[in-house]
């Protein structure tokens, strides 16, 4: 079979980041929130690989620990919409009828809604923090999966192998699980790759707006916001976290493309 380099390169980059995040305490000896007011805004040295920020905290350490937060939330924040969206897509696609019509109108409404307005509103309701972000993303994120899966279900249920399954007398739950689901899910999986990127971007943006995680915690978005005044001198403080988002996005899109190739066999 032709080598699927795209997939492997993407996985390689992402796993490096994930491993770095997981083994953060082993990679850096600095505590990400520990301040050293004697040594603020230091240039990169062999001690502080990326220097220190305005509070003397080690930037590299904050970057790695920030990866923990952003990657985790990014993936978790997509898992819930994925499950909800795919399930609803299966049901509406298969059964149709009034339930389908209602859900689709809800989908249309949610899509029309500007995401950040909703997110900000929710953060005001629930207070800033990881929980609000995940709720906001979940409330809005499921619709894409629902639409994708529903469209594929509408096609799949007209296939003859589904008719054959019906003729065997199999119950609907079984047909959905064994015959429909495996054949409709690949597009959703590929989409989830870019969705993770979008979620991370959302978290980072909310963090930049000050609506993300509470202050001392290391997170790329808040790092960008805090580092913004120093853009011209210690430019690396706000730019490198942004660059990390780019790398994560790039690796996920490689994985997405690689998956498309693999699943289309």
């Amino acid at each position: 079979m032709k080598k699927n380099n795209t997939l492997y390169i993407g996985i390689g980059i992402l796993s490096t980041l994930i491993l770095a995040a997981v083994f953060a305490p082993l990679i850096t000896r600095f505590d990400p929130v520990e301040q050293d007011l004697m040594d603020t805004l230091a240039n990169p040295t062999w001690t502080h690989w990326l220097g220190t920020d305005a509070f003397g905290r080690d930037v590299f350490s904050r970057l790695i620990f920030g990866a923990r937060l952003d990657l985790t939330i990014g993936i978790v924040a997509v898992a819930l919409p994925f499950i909800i969206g795919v399930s609803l897509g299966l049901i509406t696609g298969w059964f149709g009828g009034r339930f389908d019509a209602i859900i689709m109108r809800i989908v249309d409404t949610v899509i029309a809604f500007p995401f950040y307005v909703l997110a900000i509103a929710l953060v005001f309701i629930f207070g800033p923090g990881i929980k609000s972000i995940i709720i906001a993303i979940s409330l809005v994120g499921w619709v894409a999966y629902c639409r994708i899966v529903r469209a594929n279900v509408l096609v799949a249920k007209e296939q003859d192998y589904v008719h054959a399954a019906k003729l065997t007398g199999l119950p609907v739950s079984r047909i959905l699980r064994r015959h429909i689901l495996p054949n409709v899910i690949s597009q959703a999986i590929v989409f989830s790759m870019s969705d993770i990127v979008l979620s991370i971007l959302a978290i980072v943006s909310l963090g930049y707006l000050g609506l993300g995680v509470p202050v001392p915690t290391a997170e790329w978005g808040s790092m960008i916001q805090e580092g913004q005044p120093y853009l011209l001198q210690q430019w690396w403080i706000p730019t490198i976290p942004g660059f990390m988002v780019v790398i994560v996005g790039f690796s996920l899109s490689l994985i997405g493309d690689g998956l498309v190739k693999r699943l289309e066999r």
Partner: protein
Amino acid sequence: MSTINTSTSPETNPIAAKDLVKHFAKKQTLANRIKKTPIFNVPAVDGVSLNIQTGETLGLVGESGCGKSTLGRTLVGLYSATSGSISLYEKEVSNSRTLEDRRAVQMIFQDPFSSLNPRMTVGDMLSEALLFHKLVSKEKVKVRCLELLSLVGLPADAVDSYPRQFSGGQRQRIGIARALALEPKVLIADEPVSALDVSVQASVVNLLMDLKKDLGLTMLFISHNIAVVRQVSDRIAVMYLGRIIEIGPTEEIFRNPSHPYTKLLLSSVPKMSIGSQISSAPAGELPTMLSAMTGCRFRSRCPIAISDCATKDPQLVEVNKTHQAACLMVN
């Protein structure tokens, strides 16, 4: 519609239909609902009665739009009948089917590329049906799968392979194996060889003829390919616009077609005999506004239509003891 008792009593008929009707209601928009416009029904099957005897292969021919596929799917249970009855060994099944009933009638599909789940191995497909109906124990299921595969002429290693690894002809064989797994009483084959190349078609037709002989299969063979139907069928029914307009033993129909449409159909088929030339070109097209038609539906294209044909809707009448045709000009 008069029932046609061709020979033996109905009790022995594995499958029979009486005055079967299947309409598809065209979707109504909200505007139509408010205006209360009458629902426009496309009558795909418009009053069909037939019975198939044990071990018989009934060929069903007709052109696109005649309803043969719909008839097949309604008989097998994929569509529910709008009205009329379907019975399996005299048991009425048109409204609901038990699991046993479902097992008794199975279908072979036309398209080898969409009739098999691309994400299941051949073994999984066969086992699923076998285990669900508890036809074999878990220990014995693999053996049974191999038996089914050899029955249709496929090698044993097919059991762990995916559909994409097979050619069109092989996929049709897998489809046949799947249909046979449940040991049905009746097989409905919906254009089983139409999507295959000539040489592959021949091998699948041979397979079906062998299975018919060895297993005593009762089969409804739906096809638009007259030549293939002649090979496999004991009796032939010709459909036009939702009705059976002629039915009788194969050789009788070919030698002595009685309905003008049958004559038209048979003369249009290109022949293999040397020096054969395209004969009379039939006139006209299918009528579009079916609901507005009175009298015989074929009269717009019929070379022998008379004035009565515009008012009387012909029913099936006897041409001889085994052969019926729905035409006012019979006899």
